[in-house]
C-alpha cells in the first residue's frame, strides 16, 4: 500500500513534467492544408444604429454575454446550424473554438443554469429575414449572399473587402 501511495505522488510529479512537454507539441490544426479563403460579412437590421463591432464584442455577442449595460438594448445573435462550413469557420475565427469545443461550451453553460446558445437557422433567407426584423439582430454570411434586407457593418473598423478584414478563414 505504501508503494501505491508513492506511485500516486510520483504520478502527480510526472504529470507536472509531462504536461508542459505535451503542450509544446505541434497542434494537428496547424498542419491544415492551404485552402480557399472565405470571408464572412456581419450584418444587422437596416435601421440599426450599429456601425462597427470589435472582434471581442462580436465574440461576446455570439457567446450570449450580456453587454447591454444601462440601456438594456441587447444584441440578438442568429447563427448558422452547427457544423455548416461557415459556422465552423466563424466559430474558429471569432470564438476561437472547434465544433467540439463549441458543443462543450454550451453544454457546460446550460448545466450551470445559464441561457443556451443563439438560435441556429438552417435557411439563409430566414436568417436574413429574422435579422432584418429583430431589434438588435446580428447575423453573418458570405458577402455575395447578403441582400438589401440588412446592412453590413465593419469589424474592427474594416469592411469585408478591405485589407486586413479579420473575419476570414480557410475553408
Amino acid at each position: 500500500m505504501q508503494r501505491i501511495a508513492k506511485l500516486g505522488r510520483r504520478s502527480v510529479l510526472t504529470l507536472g513534467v509531462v504536461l508542459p512537454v505535451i503542450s509544446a507539441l505541434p497542434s494537428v490544426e496547424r498542419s491544415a492544408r492551404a485552402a480557399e479563403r472565405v470571408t464572412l460579412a456581419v450584418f444587422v437590421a437596416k435601421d440599426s444604429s450599429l456601425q462597427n463591432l470589435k472582434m471581442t464584442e462580436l465574440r461576446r455577442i455570439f457567446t450570449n454575454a450580456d453587454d447591454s449595460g444601462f440601456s438594456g438594448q441587447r444584441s440578438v445573435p442568429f447563427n448558422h446550424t452547427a457544423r455548416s462550413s461557415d459556422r465552423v469557420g466563424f466559430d474558429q475565427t471569432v470564438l476561437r473554438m472547434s465544433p467540439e469545443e463549441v458543443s462543450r461550451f454550451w453544454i457546460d453553460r446550460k448545466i450551470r443554469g445559464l441561457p443556451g446558445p443563439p438560435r441556429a437557422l438552417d435557411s439563409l433567407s430566414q436568417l436574413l429575414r429574422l435579422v432584418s426584423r429583430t431589434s438588435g439582430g446580428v447575423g453573418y454570411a458570405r458577402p455575395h449572399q447578403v441582400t438589401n434586407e440588412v446592412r453590413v457593418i465593419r469589424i474592427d473598423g474594416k469592411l469585408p473587402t478591405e485589407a486586413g478584414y479579420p473575419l476570414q478563414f480557410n475553408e
Partner: protein
Amino acid sequence: MRFSSVALSAWLLSRAGLALAADPLPAPTTPTTAVEPGMDMPTPAPAPAIAPGPTATTADADAEGKFAAAPEPASDSFTSEESGSDSDTQRKLDLYGFADFTYQRLLVDKENIWNRTYPSVNSFAVGNFNLYLSSNLGDSWRALAEVRFMYLPNGASKPDASGNAIRTDTTVLDYAGFEEPIRWGGIRIERIYIEHEFNGLLKLQVGQFLTPYGIWNVDHGSPTIIGIKKPFVVSNQLFPEQQVGLQLYGSYFLDPLEVGYHLTLSNGRGPVEYQDFDDDKAFGGRLYVKTDAVGSLTVGASIYRGGYLDRSAKYVVTNNGTTVDQEYTPLSKYQELSLGADVKWEYKSWLVQGEAIMNEANFEVRPRSTVIRPPQGFQADYRRWGAYGLIGYRLPFLPLMPYVIVQHAISPDSPNTPPATAYEVGINYRPIAPVVVKLEYTDWHFSAPGSAGFGNYPLRILATQVAWAF
C-alpha cells in the same frame, strides 16, 4: 393496439411541436435584390466595390445548398435547437439534464477502518440524475428549475444515541403489481427560480438558487466539473450550497474587462428551506473581474453573512386553558461569516483554477457536538477553512485532460474530521461533448487522528465515473 395508438399520438404531437418550432416567418414584402455590402452604411468612406451578388433567390439557393451539404451535427443536438435569444418567438419548455455513474475502490488494507466508514465503497452507483426545466417566458422573463432524482433516503444511515448505525429502508409492496417489494426514492429541488432582466446591469432572480460563490459550486454538474468528487472545502458547505430568496446580478463590459456582481438576500442556512425561524435574513455577494485578453481569466471574491436557528416546538395550553399555543426551545443558534476568493484561468489548452474559503461561526445557543466517540461536549465557536488548486491540460490530439488537484481542509466544527490534505491525479476524457469519462486517484493525508481516530489510517481512493448530459 393501445400502445400503437399512444405511439402514433406521441409521434403526431412531436411533429406538431416541430412544425410550431419551425414556424416560418411571412414572406418579405420588399423586393430583395442583392446589394453590395456596406451600401446602406452612412460612413464617410465610400463602400468598396464587391462583385455583384446573385439575387436573393439565388443566394438562398446557394446557401441552402451549402447548409444541406453540411454534415449532420454529431453531438450538437443538445445545443443547436436552443433559442436563447428570440424569446418572444420561441416560448417552449426546454428539458435537459445530466447523470453520472461512479465506481470507486479503496486502495487500503482490509483492516483499515475506512473500508467500513467510507460511503459506497467497491460499488457501482448512479449518483446524480438531474433534470432541468427551462423556459424563456418572453419579455425578458426566464424560468429555470432543476431537480435531482435520488435513491435516497433508502440506504442512508444515521447513528442513534447508543451508537447503532440505523439504516433507512424504504421498501414497500407495490400495489400496482403482485405486491412485489419495491423501494422508493426521493426528489431534491436543486434550484427553482424566475428571472427578470431589467438591463445588463440588473437581473433579478427570485426562488431557490445556487449560492454564487467561487467556481465549483456554480459549475455544479458532473459533466462540467473536471474531477469526480467536489473538493472537501466545497462539499463541506462553508458557504451554503443553495439559498431561498432574492438574487440580483449583472455585469458591465469595459473592454477588455468584464466586471460583474451578485447580491443575495435569503432565509440563510437553516433546518428548513422555506422557513426562517429567526427572521434574520442572510445576505451575501460576489464580485468578479473577467478578461479574455490573456486566455480567459476570472478573479472573484465572495461573502456570506447570516444566522442559523434550530428549535424544537411543543403545543401548550395558555390563557386559563382557552388557547393552544406553541412554545419554542432553541437547540442551536449562531451567526456565521463566510469569505471566499477564486481564480480561473483558461489559456489555450491549459486550465488553472483555485478557491480559498473561510467560514466562522459564533454560537449563542450551543448544540451538543456531533462526535462519535464520547465524551460529548457542546459545540465550540469555530473557524474552518480550506483551499484547492487544479491544473489541467487538454491534449491537442485527443479530447482528454490530465489534471492534478491539491486540496487542504481544516474542519474544527467536526472533531471526527482531522485536518487533511489530498493529492489527486486524474484524467477527464470527453469523447463527445455530452459524455465525460473520468479516472481519478486520491491520496489523503491527515495531520491528526481526529476524535474518532480516522486520521490514524491512510485513505487512498481510485474512482472512475461516466457523466453525461442529455
